[in-house]
């Protein structure tokens, strides 16, 4: 009753905007990841296009209140197409002083800050290593921003006084207050989150009730208090019609693997050893026992790939997943698989290196290892996923190549797209292509002779399942005689086999799409050539410069070995080629060597994705030059 009155009185401006970036930032214990994901799901279900960027520390729980412990979740959503989580944010939620310290720099001038004042007491300021008597909330530090300082902890407690819950539970639900408040700010429905809460706490209804109560309180707080005078309205995006879901890169890989297994009729086997940021793939797949998926947590990465080689040998769709350090350990076994010429998918979700490096940060620095990190001449196909949802297509295609061309395939993803999410207009199962596997059933040579290494026109040898009557044979890591596969140290044969193995990989170029600009014309002054997770930033930069009338284009490589057939010509259609990479110029190396084009590199090795601005700046520089 009373509130309704208030509401009537209060004038709330509704501001239409076409995109907004929100950064939720707090202590590892503050539940910012969950808050961000709930907000994201709601925006997604509402129909916004979006892109997210979870950004957390490598310690499980660094000391509370410290800078090391800050966990952030950034979401960029809009009524227009969104390709990146955003260079800077419009709204920053800072649950404590450390969060403010870490994330303030990227808040755009004039942006909105929502802080939980209890996170700014002496203790917290101290933990965040602010100078003795600093008082960021009032000493003008934030003068360029609109700040809403709220004692969220207190309000949460008040709202749950008679909930009968312990202080711990009570405090833990303060993130729901934030969520409710933001739902109000952006005029979003809360049903999805309410349903989520009820599902999550079916066994603890009192907790569910409390969380919903606090969520509501947050909404009301925005609605009632005079402090908040504007609500932002971000309409649904004009995405192509269809049914969508929100998906992260690692989830998309799991879905892709299950789809490839289904479409190939091959049982799925994954042999892996846990490692950040790849482990989620193993986690997710191990839930699919009901679908007959065999997940094998090996004693180490070598056993991971070795078990996958064994499974592939018996006719399974075999996969091993890892990140840099594990990738290094798998190289010897990759050489064996190359010799055996069996299908195998090796997924490297890249992270900051070298060595243990920055385990939870992103990087693209394993490309050359994927290309050359094996002893001897052991060429393998290398594919790279460019966005969270693209991981689905890439992994599906990687499986198809592995099975149809009888070769291990390396798929490169990275921490940025593995954990980041975006809306995905998922396909219909019927529309998925098939993966044809043809196991040899009887001898393939003249007069009943079995020739395990007799190749078809694509230089592909037959896949022969143990258990197949009459096809008993031996394979191994020693050089093989052409066709028979028997051990051979013969000079000419070794050279021939080396060339055949290479030819088989090169022939794949006839089965992959030709290269074509993703944005812009197929000729012009400047081409930005990218691969992997730099897609969104490059695309946005190129679109913006095109809009500004510049003669630029964006070409994104999904196949790094072999390159698309026409790549060479295409590159020559542009005056200049810029290759931005989150490494010191690895694709650059390959492109220059293969096509002798004087491409320029743009390196960023900070464990952080490119911003659109960084790429635009470099482009303009080259255009001016």
């Amino acid at each position: 009753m009373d509130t309704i009155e208030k509401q009537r009185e209060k004038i709330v401006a509704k501001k239409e905007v076409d995109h907004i970036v929100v950064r939720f930032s707090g202590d590892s214990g503050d539940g910012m990841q969950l808050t961000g994901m709930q907000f994201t799901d709601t925006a997604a279900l509402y129909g916004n296009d979006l892109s997210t960027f979870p950004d957390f520390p490598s310690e499980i729980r660094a000391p509370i209140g410290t800078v090391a412990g800050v966990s952030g979740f950034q979401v960029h959503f809009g009524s227009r197409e969104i390709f990146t989580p955003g260079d800077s944010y419009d709204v920053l939620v800072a649950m404590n002083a450390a969060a403010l310290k870490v994330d303030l720099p990227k808040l755009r001038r004039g942006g909105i800050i929502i802080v939980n004042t209890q996170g700014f007491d002496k203790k917290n300021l101290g933990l965040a290593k602010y100078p003795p008597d600093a008082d960021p909330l009032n000493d003008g530090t934030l003068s360029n921003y609109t700040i809403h300082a709220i004692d969220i902890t207190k309000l949460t407690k008040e709202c749950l006084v008679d909930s009968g819950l312990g202080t711990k539970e009570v405090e833990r639900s303060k993130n729901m207050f934030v969520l409710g408040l933001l739902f109000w700010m952006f005029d979003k429905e809360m049903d999805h989150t309410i349903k989520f809460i009820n599902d999550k706490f079916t066994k603890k209804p009192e907790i569910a009730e409390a969380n919903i109560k606090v969520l509501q309180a947050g909404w009301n707080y925005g609605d009632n208090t005079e402090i908040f005078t504007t609500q932002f309205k971000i309409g649904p995006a004009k995405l192509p019609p269809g049914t969508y879901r929100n998906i992260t890169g690692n989830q998309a890989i799991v879905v892709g693997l299950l789809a490839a297994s289904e479409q190939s009729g091959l049982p799925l086997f994954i042999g892996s050893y846990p490692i950040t940021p790849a482990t989620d793939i193993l986690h997710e797949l191990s839930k699919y026992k009901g679908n007959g998926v065999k997940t094998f947590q090996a004693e180490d990465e070598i056993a991971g790939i070795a078990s996958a080689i064994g499974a592939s040998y018996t006719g399974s769709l075999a996969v091993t997943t890892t990140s840099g350090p594990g990738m290094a350990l798998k190289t010897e076994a990759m050489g064996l698989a190359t010799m055996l010429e069996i299908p195998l998918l090796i997924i490297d979700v890249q992270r900051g290196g070298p060595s243990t490096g920055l385990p939870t940060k992103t990087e693209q620095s394993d490309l050359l290892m994927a290309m050359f990190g094996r002893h001897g001449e052991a060429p393998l196909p290398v594919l790279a996923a460019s966005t969270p949802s693209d991981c689905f297509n890439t992994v599906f295609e990687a499986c198809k190549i592995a099975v149809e061309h009888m070769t291990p395939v390396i798929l490169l993803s990275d921490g940025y797209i593995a954990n980041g999410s975006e809306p995905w207009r998922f396909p219909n199962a019927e529309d998925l292509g098939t993966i044809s596997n043809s196991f040899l059933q009887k001898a393939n040579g003249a007069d009943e002779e079995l020739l395990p290494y007799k190749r078809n026109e694509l230089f592909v040898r037959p896949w022969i399942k143990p258990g197949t009557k009459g096809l008993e044979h031996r394979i191994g890591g020693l050089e093989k005689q052409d066709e028979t596969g028997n051990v051979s140290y013969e000079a000419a044969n070794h050279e021939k086999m080396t060339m055949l193995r290479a030819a088989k990989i090169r022939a794949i170029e006839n089965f992959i799409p030709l290269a074509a600009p993703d944005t812009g014309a197929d000729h012009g002054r400047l081409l930005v050539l990218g691969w992997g997770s730099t897609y969104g930033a490059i695309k946005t930069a190129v679109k913006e410069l095109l809009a500004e009338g510049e003669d630029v284009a964006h070409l994104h490589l999904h196949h790094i070995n072999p390159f698309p057939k026409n790549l060479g010509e295409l590159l020559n259609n542009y005056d200049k080629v810029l290759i931005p990479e989150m490494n010191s110029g690895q694709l650059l190396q390959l492109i220059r060597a293969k096509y002798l084009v004087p491409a320029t590199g743009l390196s960023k090795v900070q464990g952080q994705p490119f911003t659109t601005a960084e790429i635009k700046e470099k482009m303009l520089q080259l255009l001016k030059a």
Partner: protein
Amino acid sequence: METLTLEKPQSLTAKDFSSDMEVKWCPGCGDYSILKQVQTVFPDLGIPKENFVFISGIGCSSRFSYYMDTYGMHSIHGRAAAIASGVKAANPELSVWVVSGDGDSMSIGGNHFIHLMRKNFDINYLMFNNQIYSLTKGQYSPTSEKGKITKTSPYGSIEEPFNPSELALGAKASFVARTLDRDPKHMQGILRRAHQHRGTSFVEVYQNCPVFNDGAFFAFSDKETKKEEALQLEDGKPLVFGNDENKGIILDGLTPVIVDLKEGGRGRDELWIHDEKDKTKANLIARFFDTAFDGQHFPRPFGVMYAEERPTYEDNMAAQIELQKEKKGKQPLQKILSGDKTWTIF
């Protein structure tokens, strides 16, 4: 045996198991005998030929897989156990055999070895132990005795060797046995037992390398010494050895004691009766290898030291999958694609 022989699906002969590959071991190599015994035993195992798979590592021993006319993979050094695990997990129907050397198994392959024992896949693991790295021309291995002069230990090895049986037991092996290249019949029996045992069967085969470690095990096969130096284990039978069976082993508390069966005093009735299922005894027997209980010199045990079945990895895996299929059923692909939160744009 009988029952198995009856099941025999095709009537196979030893020849059916010899591949067309020329055998390239040195003249007199113990590996020849092992190959022969395996080929002799296989026809009777009641397994269709095409269901046998050999996975070997790298080493002279590991060339073995080329010579068996079955499915086979000569893989990489030390990884056979891990590859075989994948083979068995993916297709439990196959009869999977690992062939490896002492270096391949105990040195570079040590981690996969102990994990295989723990996981207990139904895999038969043959380790040809010649106590030397042969293919690389003679360096000491983790089973070489201390003081051994080799190319990498010109002044004698300073390393305490592994006791393979003890290591396997410590890693929870469910079947541990030892046999010898020069005792064909014995080897055949052990191979059959290994096959019958459901779970990982670790078989250590003493194998002579005439080129780099000649005679390492002759004491256990030569007429003159055999009876004194080798102890033949048989389940339910007492531990007796020595020229004309004159020595026995009893347990004095926890201490094995060698007794003279001729003289009176402690005698036959007290003899230690071999019990394959008793891990404590198995541990003691395994330690005869190098432990001088009360300063005594013990004969080297041959035969099955330990055999106690427990669920295999692949059975547990299958059971869990079955259970989930019942409980949850197979999720249709479309459901997987859509996940549980979707929205539609028109």
